[in-house]
Each structure stands twice: as structure tokens, then as C-alpha cells.
């Protein structure tokens, strides 16, 4: 149980702390194994022991040899898609988040539709979209049906983060702006948005990573051009070499970079605020 800094810690702190460390080991252990095995030597297999060390599997990945698909193109497609999904998720969620500050007619229905979209078995969403496109005679493609399918997944998550962000926003800043004669657009652009910006970056981060890693909803809807997770899924059944782990390492590193960039940006904004002594800077 919580004690103040300086007081002795209860025994339960150490028990739970140990338990927490085990949990972290459980979370990261397998990922670290993948990372190590991706540097397996040329004669090594998909498990330990390591037979020497090499970057052979990364080279295979780049050159597209060794019975794997066109990974570089899939990677570029996934990045493009994730950027578009991140921008759309942030814009749509912030806009909707502003709407939900009032109870408007249909707000409950819209909220529960978004929640349903989140809890829906992913394969159905893809199936439904693919079926709809087929019956209407349209072709499924990456940036139509594929993007739509991914948004049904990124938007509800983004919406939750937006609610948390906007819920913490102190409306007195907005009222002050109104009193000074700001129009509603000025109020949003110059007051609300700068204050909630860290949260908005968080929403975009969710949009990006959820889209970048999404495959259950994409599998039936992206058409002929596969995204990276779909290529990886296809590889899992065919690959018999550590090239799969090399790919795992690369894609995890990309996720880490995006995450770090987002966190650093948020950190810089927060620090500037703390430094300027004002809650909002624009």
C-alpha cells in the first residue's frame, strides 16, 4: 500500500515489485530472443544455439532473395498507409471529440457504434467490406477499402485517447478567449489545439502504429497489394530461415522509432510549457 516518500516500504511492495519484473520479462523476453536470433549465422536455424553471427538475413530481406515476397515495396506501402491513417485518425477524432463535449442528438448512438466497431471480430469487418465492394462491383484496393477497414480499428482507439485528452482540458481558457472576442475557429486554433496538442500527437501515434501493424481487417480488403504485416503473415507459413526474425527485428525497430519520436515531441512540448511557466504556448 502506498506510503509517502521517506517512510519504510511495506513487504507487499517487494512481492508485487518482483511480480511486476516477472511480467516485464514475460513481455519482453520473447521479443529479445527474436532480436538475437535475427543475427544468426548462415548455418544456424530458427532456434538456439547461435551458429556464429551474421547480418545475412537482413541482406536477404533487402534483396528479396530466399523465397520471400517483395518486402521493401510492402514496407513502403505500409508506411504510406500508416501516415494517411494517422493524419485521418487525428483529424477525425479531434473533430468528433469536440462534438462530444456537448450531448447532441445521436451522440449516444455514435459513441456505441464506435465501441461496437472496436469489439467486432476483425475478420467480419474485412469480410463485410469485401462483400459490399464485390456486390457493388467495385474493386478492393489499398487506399479505399483497405484504408476504410483500418479506420474502423484506429478511430475507436483514437476516440478514447481524445476523450481522455479533451476531458482534462480546462474550459476556463476557452471562456477567457471568448471574453476577449475570439471567434470559435480562433478559439480552437489558438487556444484549444495548442493545449491539447500532446494528446493529439498521442492519437496520431495510435493511428500510425495500429495501422502499421494491422492485418486482421486488412487481409480481405487491401486488394492485390499486400501490406507488410500481411507479407509477414504469409511468410510465417513458408519461411524456414531466420529471415523472418530479421524482418521482425526491422519492423519492431521502426515501431520503436515512431514511438520514440512521438514521445520526444510530447516531452519537448511539455518541457517548454513547464519552462515558460504558462500552461499553454502557441
Amino acid at each position, binding site marked *: *500500500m502506498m506510503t509517502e516518500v521517506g517512510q519504510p516500504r511495506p513487504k507487499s511492495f517487494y512481492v508485487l515489485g518482483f511480480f511486476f519484473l516477472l511480467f516485464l520479462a514475460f*513481455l519482453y523476453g520473447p521479443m529479445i530472443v527474436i532480436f538475437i536470433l535475427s543475427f544468426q549465422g548462415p548455418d544456424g536455424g530458427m532456434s538456439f544455439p547461435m551458429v556464429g553471427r551474421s547480418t545475412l538475413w537482413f541482406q536477404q530481406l533487402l534483396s528479396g532473395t530466399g523465397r520471400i515476397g517483395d518486402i521493401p515495396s510492402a514496407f513502403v506501402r505500409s508506411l504510406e498507409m500508416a501516415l494517411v491513417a494517422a493524419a485521418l485518425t487525428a483529424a477525425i477524432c479531434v473533430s468528433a471529440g469536440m462534438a462530444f463535449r456537448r450531448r447532441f442528438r445521436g451522440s449516444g448512438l455514435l459513441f456505441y457504434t*464506435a465501441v461496437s466497431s472496436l469489439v467486432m471480430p476483425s*475478420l467480419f469487418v474485412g469480410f463485410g467490406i469485401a*462483400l*459490399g465492394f464485390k456486390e457493388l462491383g467495385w474493386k478492393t484496393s489499398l487506399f479505399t477499402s483497405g484504408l476504410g477497414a483500418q479506420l474502423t480499428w484506429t478511430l475507436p482507439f483514437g476516440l478514447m485517447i481524445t476523450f481522455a485528452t479533451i476531458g482534462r482540458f480546462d474550459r476556463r481558457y476557452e471562456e477567457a478567449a471568448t471574453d476577449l472576442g475570439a471567434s470559435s475557429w480562433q478559439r480552437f486554433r489558438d487556444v484549444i489545439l495548442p493545449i491539447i496538442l500532446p494528446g493529439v500527437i498521442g492519437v496520431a501515434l495510435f493511428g500510425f502504429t495500429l495501422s*502499421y501493424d494491422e492485418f486482421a481487417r486488412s487481409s480481405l480488403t487491401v486488394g492485390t497489394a499486400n501490406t507488410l504485416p500481411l507479407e*509477414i*503473415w504469409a511468410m510465417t507459413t513458408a519461411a524456414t530461415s531466420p529471415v523472418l526474425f530479421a524482418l521482425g527485428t526491422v519492423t519492431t525497430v521502426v515501431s520503436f522509432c515512431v514511438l520514440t519520436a512521438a514521445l520526444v515531441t510530447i516531452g519537448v512540448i511539455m518541457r517548454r510549457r513547464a519552462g515558460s511557466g504558462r500552461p499553454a504556448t502557441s
Partner: protein
Amino acid sequence: MSLAARLEQTAKTGAPIAFRTKRPWPGAIVSWLQAAPLALVLLLMFVAPLAFVVVVSFFDYGRVDIYPAFMLDNYVEVFTSEVTGRLYLKTLEYAALVEAITLVLGFFVAYYLTFHVRTLRWRIVLLLACSIPFFTSNVIRMISWIPFLGREGILNDAVMATHLVSQPLDFLLFSDFAVVVAYVHIFTLMMVAPVVNSMAKIDRGLIAAARDAGATEGQIVRDIIIPLSKTGIALGSVLVLTQVMGDYYIVRMLSGGKSAGVVTGIATQLNAFEYPPAAASSVVLLIVVITLVVGIFSLVDVRKELAA
């Protein structure tokens, strides 16, 4: 007031000009416009496709195509097939097991972070440490168990080294065990995050008061923390249960195709282009999932929890 009059007044009083020349729009209309993009995407990519699935579930089908009809044969097939019961049983078994494990695990992780870690800085660092894997690829996280649990995997090497067994354990990989481990690995965070969110809102004064009144840690957890974090627990449970019930990929990869859930059955029908039966199975699963979610949400007010 005209603009000239306003300027004149400003010149006299020094007050800023309020350029509110237009009447503001009524709140409801503004809200609708702001919510419209979200509503549009959900309508086109979620509601309409779902309606399509429901409609097609009544259709007839042949070898290559589906034909508009209104027949209940697809549903009759779902309810009379002995496979359906088996798949549902398996899925519910996974769901119950994973829910129980993630609940205990998630609760204690959240509890430790919120009530034992004393500084905000450490709380943020440790919460981030728990969340980072969520931002990495699920497929990779599934695959990562293979070199860990395999016959020549790390766990088997470790067990063999203890000389407790003479043969590598075969049940570790491509088994129900592996499936549950991967589910817990991937979905525990979906429990941790909402529970942390709920716990963070608990008034510390309550706990201090309980402690001053002589309550033990166990009593505080049972009588204060669990009741006050039940919305988070409900939300986390919904996320975990629906993810497990809707999963197809994890069970396929980690059971090595030996085990199957409800969605596996639907995927098999999809691969055989049997769209109407797949649609009917989907609708049945949908009703089961929705009933479950509504049941859990009826216990708590989720919207209040999220919006506050």
C-alpha cells in the same frame, strides 16, 4: 452595432474589438458537423458492411456465386452442425481462461503502478514499459513465442538442463498452452490500461482514511479499490474477451492448426467461397459477442468513465 461604431468605442475605452459579426451557429448543428466525418466513416465502413453481412446470411449460393433469396437454411446449418458447438466451446474456454489470467495479472500490475510506485515519474516510466509492446506488431509477437516454446526452444533447454525430464516437453508449442500464453502476452495491456485509468481516479484520501481506521491492505483492496475500479475492469474485460472471441490468427499460428475457434470456422467457409453460410455464422457470433458486451456494460457506465 456597426463596425465603425465598434471602432469608435474601442478608441474611447481601449477595450479590444469583438469581431463577432455573425451569430454563432446553434450548438447541435456544430456538434453534428464535427461528428460527421466519424459518423460517415463508421457508416460506410462498419454499419453498411455489417448490414451486407446480415442480408447475405439469408442468401442462397452456388459454386461460384451468391443469389438473392430469403432462406433460413444457412442458420439451420449453423445450429444443427455439430461443429458449431465444438468451436463455441473451444472459443469460450479460451476466452474464460484468458479473461481470468489477464484480470488477475492486469489488476495487480495496475495496482502496483498506481498505489505502490510513489513518484509520478516512475509511474509513467513503468506504465510506458508495459505499453511499448502494444505499439509493435502482433504477428511478430506471436512468432516470438516459437523459438521460446519449441522442442528445441529456450524453455525446453532450460527444463532439460534441470534433468527433471528426459524428453523435451511437446505440449509447450503448437498447443492450447501456447495459444493461451500468446493471448495473455498480447492482450494483458488491454486490461492494464483501463484499470490504471480507473485506479488513478480513486481519491487517495479514502485510502489514507481506511488505513488510519486500521484497515489492512487486503481490506482496502477488497472494499475500496476493487469496487472503485470496476468500470475499468469491465472495460478491460470487454476488450480482452472480444479480442479472444474474434481471433483467428493467434489460435491458428500457436496451435499449429490443431485447434480452432469460431472465427476459424468462418474463415474456412470464406476460403471455400461459401459466403452466405459464413455470413450466417458471423451473425450468430455477432449476437453472442454483442450480448456479452451489453451484459458487461449494463453493470457500469462506460461513457461516463471515458468522457470524464
